[in-house]
């Protein structure tokens, strides 16, 4: 395995790390890359910020949609037709 990462690979590890699932070796390789790559360093900062945003999007709640009674009736009808 080569140690040096491309920007594509480094940012991929960064994204995986947002979920705490990057391996120790990969994290180390990424940190090393970021040391010398200002662009990926910026990306990494923004990516981490987005993770924070994401958690507040989630808390506010995705609209929990439900089937209404008409939709259910329609379904039941279609089943009846087939039986």
């Amino acid at each position, binding site marked *: 395995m080569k140690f040096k990462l491309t920007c594509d690979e480094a940012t991929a590890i960064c994204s995986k790390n947002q979920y705490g699932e990057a391996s120790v070796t990969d994290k180390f390789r990424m940190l090393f890359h970021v040391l010398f790559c200002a*662009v990926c360093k910026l990306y990494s900062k923004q990516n981490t910020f987005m993770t924070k945003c994401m958690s507040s999007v989630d808390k506010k709640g995705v609209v929990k949609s439900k089937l209404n009674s008409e939709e259910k009736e329609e379904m*039941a009808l279609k089943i009846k037709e087939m039986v």
Partner: protein
Amino acid sequence: MTLEKKHQLNPEKWVGLYADYLFNYTIRRVDNHEVSKDLIQETFYAALKSVPNFKGLASERTWLIAILKRKIIDHYRKVNSVKGKAEIRVNFHQDGSQEGDWIQERVPAKWTSASDYNLEQMELTDTLRKCIDNLPEKYAMVFKMKTMQEMETADICKELDISSSNLWVIIHRARTQLRACMEENWFNK
């Protein structure tokens, strides 16, 4: 009907008994009301067709969920095969001597307006939500399951029948796209 049969099917009661349960299960994965409804209807159809094959070993609900899971995989494969139309923009050189490097126009820019970093701001999360909804469906589905529903990687892989490296490529592309979308629509607008 024999006594050994532990479970029996009552198709007339399916909607009343299981529609909500199946719908909740589906909407968490596809995040779209109409699509979820259609998948459940298809599940009921498929189930009706295979009533003669029902051995009564599993409960009705377990059996229906098994069929629904198959339908969700089929749906994912379908959106996954829609090429070109709603692809994500490429951010890195795909080949040549610059392979893996940022493409010049896609390099992240510094986000200005530091005060807008305030997470409490409704508009910020609304913009993010819109950016997420703008992802092509095959990316949105995986991204939402992982990020919003916080499902385990292994579970998503099993449910969509994809490999974990495949999953991480999708997450990586989705997040890179989201970053660019936030830059265009919020930070450096």
